[in-house]
């Protein structure tokens, strides 16, 4: 589908298929259209052209309250005048078949480990707890698809990793299809079954984390997901770039270089060196693999299979 706003095109002829039960992530820099796609699927915007199908049925023309799709908002959007339990139970009123709403609420709160907090108000919760309430509120409705708009970006960085793992486990346990949006490539790689890398309204590549990271199809994807050293038209990841004082084996791609800067980053060092050809590279060297000094002449090498040859 395509989505135009006055003045610019947010989404340009994007096609993608998410599989049932999958954790699918849209990742890209801000403004790339990933949130727009989420809003289109959620029903908050209508596509300028194209279609959205859920299990074969088109969602076009259906308002958000008519779709079996639920959104977890970046700001969590918890209703401040309702308790946790009332927040979670909010949407149950519109599901006629539910016989025991209180029971459903209790179950899902246990699932997100918030049992005991039913009568708290959102203002009394921490960021992580609010996020879990937002999740619970959507999960209790058993949607066919859960949309998550950067749910971790408002959390403290140290909290983020822990919550990330919980989220992944939750998705596996519950089996609901997740469509996740983030601008953080590490999150995307850690959480997803498949990733779509986006740029300026278009999808650059779709694949598993390993595929898009190790076998990027464009320079943008390669550079977005990690560092890249460009030498002679090929790209190499810094972690695949090695530094050595002795001459490396001939079957490797090897260059002589002079170290320009060594940055100690705790568990590893980043070594920036300049090749004799003039190119600059960055190598990631584990701290325990030896220490190097600026000005030192060294060999820089990598395996041929680690090279990525990409069109610009």
């Amino acid at each position, binding site marked *: 589908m395509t989505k135009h706003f006055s003045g610019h095109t947010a989404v340009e002829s994007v096609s993608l298929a998410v599989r049932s039960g999958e954790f699918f992530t849209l990742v890209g820099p801000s403004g790339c259209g990933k949130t727009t796609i989420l809003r289109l699927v*959620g*029903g908050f915007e209508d596509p300028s052209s194209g279609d959205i199908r859920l299990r074969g049925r088109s969602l076009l023309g259906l308002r*958000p309250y008519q779709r079996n799709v639920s959104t977890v908002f*970046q700001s969590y959007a918890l*209703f401040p005048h309702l308790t946790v339990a009332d927040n979670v139970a*909010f949407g149950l009123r519109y599901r006629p078949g539910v016989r025991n709403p209180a029971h459903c609420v209790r179950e899902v709160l246990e699932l997100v480990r918030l049992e005991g907090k039913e009568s708290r108000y959102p203002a009394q919760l921490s960021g992580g707890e609010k996020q879990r309430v937002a999740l619970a509120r959507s999960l209790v409705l058993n949607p066919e698809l859960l949309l998550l708009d950067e749910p971790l970006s408002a959390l403290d960085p140290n909290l983020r990793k822990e919550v990330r793992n919980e989220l992944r486990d939750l998705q596996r346990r519950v089996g609901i299809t997740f469509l996740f949006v983030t601008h953080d490539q590490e999150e995307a790689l850690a959480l997803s079954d498949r990733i779509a890398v986006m740029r300026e309204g278009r999808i650059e590549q779709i694949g598993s984390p390993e595929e898009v990271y190790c076998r990027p199809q464009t320079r943008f994807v390669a550079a977005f997901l990690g560092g890249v050293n460009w030498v002679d038209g090929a790209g190499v990841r810094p972690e695949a770039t090695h530094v050595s004082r002795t001459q490396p084996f001939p079957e490797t791609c090897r260059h002589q270089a002079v170290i320009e800067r060594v940055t100690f980053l705790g568990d590893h060092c980043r070594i920036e060196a300049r090749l004799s050809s003039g190119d600059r590279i960055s190598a990631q060297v584990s701290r325990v693999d030896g220490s190097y000094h600026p000005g030192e002449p060294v060999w820089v090498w990598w395996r041929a299979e680690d090279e990525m040859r990409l069109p610009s």
Partner: protein
Amino acid sequence: MKRALALYAVAAYAFLHLPLLVLAAFSFNRSRFMRWEGFSLEWYQAAFSNPQLMEGASNSLLIAAIATILSTAIGVLGAYGLWRRRSRFLSASLYLSLLTPEIVTGVSLLVFFQWIFRVLDIRLGMHTVILAHVAFSIAYVVVVILARLQTMDATLLEAALDLGASPSEAFRRVILPVLGPAVAAASLLAFTVSFDDYVITSMVAGVDSETLPMAIYAIARRGSSPVLNAISTLIVAGLGFLTLASERLRRR
């Protein structure tokens, strides 16, 4: 510099507040002249037994109560409607109504009612005053509610829709409760504006619907009267209290 500003501020606040404070002080004066002759509540008693003032007060209260309920309800809905979808006519007319001099609003309503009444054969009376008050109060309500809506998290509405609520259910179950304090503040504001109005009311009131401001005006025109001091102090205290409450609510 700071000293000078502080001194000036004291003078400025004195200018702003002394007139009313003096009025209040003299309302407790036993004498009707400028000499202080002892503390007395007799003017307050006189005010409460003054039939013109009391009838005006009850009319004003009734009119303000009805006009407030109507203008708050219409204004809240209107503000929400404007927040969701722009309407140039509504925005422009609300904005313009705040700008229009009261005398112009008053005469235009007078002329309009007279014109209609040739067809419908009704006189000016309480009902025309109430209609006029509703008309000019709505803008105040809309301003307060719109301001609150604009600082509210807009995703609250989307979340409610997402969870299955229709737009009217979302308004009723989420927006309205969140707006609560602002609605209360707006209604207090509408009440104050309505209760105090003289200019517009005087143009569209009938013979039997004199409001308190109209009664006060009549007495003030003739000269001063300590009874007027008393009733004025009561009104200022009352409306001042309502305004304070409204501001408190608006900031919640």
